[in-house]
């Protein structure tokens, strides 16, 4: 490995390394018939260079919305408010529309769940790629674009020779996702890669290749990543830190090992328990009862209370828990149990 630049930037970098992306107090709401409906509330996130942060939760918990809010992709009727969205020391909220546009794809880019639909079907891969280079690579001359594209494609394991004039439908899903990653990483200043369920639509073997590629990118370029997924095995494999979201709010933040060993929030524990394993004696697979409450639901107590297997009592129905700190490593959990020091009972049952 030839990391002559910067300082290592691996997962076990000292906490002294300043975070490359810091988001606090993010709130995204949609105007619906005149009233704002919150989709994400009190969201915060910090990512250090070379760190992969997982963003986990069920469908509808606001993961993707949070990601798009950070990148400034949402438009009215969506409304994004935040205390700070700081990328590499610069608050993105104060930027003009043009500057914000240059940040997107330049310093922070995003890859999507469905690689097939993420390319414009009407243009060749080469022409779409060239356009991104034209936006973010002023160091290149027009003539050098194709060589650079082929070099970038080789970086993601695709032989681009003679294929730049092919249309997206001529590639497989796995290839397209890797091309998408190459496009996303085309900028030299790229610092953060936001991945919105990048492997959900891929089959398992291809998934492994894409995850491998993301890890390689992290190691080689010291990229920070935010990986949205609902697949906990992906989290276990990839992430250093995990943020668990439920119904638009963060319910737990933890180091990946702690999260799997000692989940602090019952929701996390129940998520872990819902991973199918080898049933021992004909036991039924665990399924969490109920569903994520709607965005407009009026909830007084804990948002997870009516699905929780470890409810404490009336306090859960009447008082919303804060995001209490757990331990001194920066972990947090939004559960009254944390303050009472009770263990989350479902965890023990989880051990298979």
């Amino acid at each position, binding site marked *: 490995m030839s990391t002559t630049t910067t300082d290592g930037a691996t997962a076990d970098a000292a906490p002294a390394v300043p975070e490359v992306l810091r988001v606090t107090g993010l709130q995204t709401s949609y105007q619906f018939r005149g009233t704002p409906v919150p989709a994400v509330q009190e969201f915060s996130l910090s990512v250090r260079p070379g760190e992969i942060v997982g963003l986990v939760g069920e469908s509808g918990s606001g993961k993707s919305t949070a990601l798009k809010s950070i*990148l400034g*992709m949402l438009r009215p009727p969506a409304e994004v408010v935040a205390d700070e969205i700081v990328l590499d020391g610069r608050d993105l909220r104060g930027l003009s529309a043009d500057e914000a*546009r*240059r*940040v*997107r*794809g*330049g310093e922070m*880019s*995003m890859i*999507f769940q*469905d690689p097939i*639909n*993420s*390319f*414009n*079907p*009407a*243009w060749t891969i080469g022409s779409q790629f060239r*356009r*991104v280079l034209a*936006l*973010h690579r002023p160091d290149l001359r027009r003539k050098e674009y194709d060589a650079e594209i082929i*070099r970038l494609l*080789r*970086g*993601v*394991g*695709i*032989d681009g020779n*003679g*294929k730049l004039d*092919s*249309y997206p439908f*001529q*590639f*497989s899903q*796995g*290839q397209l996702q*890797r091309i*998408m990653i190459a*496009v*996303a990483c085309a900028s030299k200043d790229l610092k953060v890669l936001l991945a919105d369920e990048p492997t959900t639509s891929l089959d398992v073997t*291809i998934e492994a*290749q894409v995850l*491998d*590629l993301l890890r*390689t*990118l992290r190691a*080689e*370029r010291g990229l920070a990543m935010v990986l949205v997924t609902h697949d906990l095995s992906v989290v276990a494999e990839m992430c250093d830190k995990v943020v668990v979201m439920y119904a638009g709010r963060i319910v737990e933040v933890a180091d990946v090992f702690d999260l799997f060993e000692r989940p602090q929030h019952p929701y996390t524990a129940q998520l872990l328990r819902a991973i199918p394993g080898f049933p021992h004696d004909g036991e039924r697979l665990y399924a969490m009862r109920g569903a994520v409450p709607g965005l407009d639901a009026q909830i007084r107590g804990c948002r997870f209370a009516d699905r929780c297997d470890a409810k404490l009592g009336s306090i859960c129905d009447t008082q919303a828990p804060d995001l209490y700190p757990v331990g001194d490593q920066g972990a947090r959990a939004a559960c009254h149990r944390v303050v009472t020091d009770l263990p989350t009972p479902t965890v023990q049952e989880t051990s298979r």
Partner: protein
Amino acid sequence: MSTSIPTPPAVEPRDPGAATTPAPASVHRADEVGLLRRLASNKLSLISLIGVVFFLLLALVGPFFSPHDPAALGDDPMAAPSSTYWMGTDSVGRDVFSRFLHGSRVSILVGFVAVVFALVVGTALGMLAGMRSGKWRDSVIMRLMDVILAFPLLVLVPVITGIIGQRDLSLGPIPIGPEVLVAVAIGIVLVPVFARIARASVLAEMREDYVMAVRSFGGRSRDILLRNLLPNIAAPLVVQAAFGLAMAITVEAAVSFLGLGVQPPGASWGTLLADARQYVTLGAWWLVVFPSIAIALFVLVFNLLGDQLRDELDPRAKTAMKKRSGGSRRARRGAVAAATPERVEGEQR
């Protein structure tokens, strides 16, 4: 190796080989160049294509073949078709065939100018409205379109020509003739059709992931609009343009027939018919038949073309007809039906 990122090992070893085979390229070519060829392979669309070529030639080179001066008064009025006057002569002895050739050019040109105007203006307005749906810009544009649509075609066109036609207009050094004026008037009337299609298509496309992806890579709004959305909404607009041409021709004929379009010394299919009006009952059928046939054929040809284009360009229809003919499609459906009982059997076992 010049790459900063080394190739991950064991990455889809199958892929490079598969993609270097010429097969995908040929698939692509068939899809790309195929449109004209596919149109030509279908009997109906072949007919419409031949018709289109015929009318284009008629408009472009027809007048050069006119045997007489179309405006020259002859000394043989109301003559039936003969070897000298192929389509007979009118009440003042002008050669109908020559007038027909010149009139065709005017009619077809008016049609094309009107549709191009409507296509460009309508698409631009519709896309602008669609990009900011629900905002005031959208409302203003679309309500304006509704206002235009609220008037009957045949009323609005003369009114517009009347309004703009009061003064002698010129676009720089080029004077704008009455024909162009009629064309623009018809174009204005056709604008809402294209605007609505463009807006609806943009609304649908804006929800596609690729628009989100382009924005996430910092694409400019202009690029999204022109480079990403336009090619993807082009198909329905092209189809509508074919129908629009047929419509523009009939509107022109109708308005000219009423004496409110192309003015007398000039000829168009509509004015030819208007001139013939008084003499039809006197047995001068040749004055009516030829322009009528021309209008009917033109409308038929372009409606056919529009239908065929829609079949070819609609992406859903395209996937459904991916394989060459209906025969193989039927065969495949049969195969699926045959497979179903087997599967049921398998489940029973």
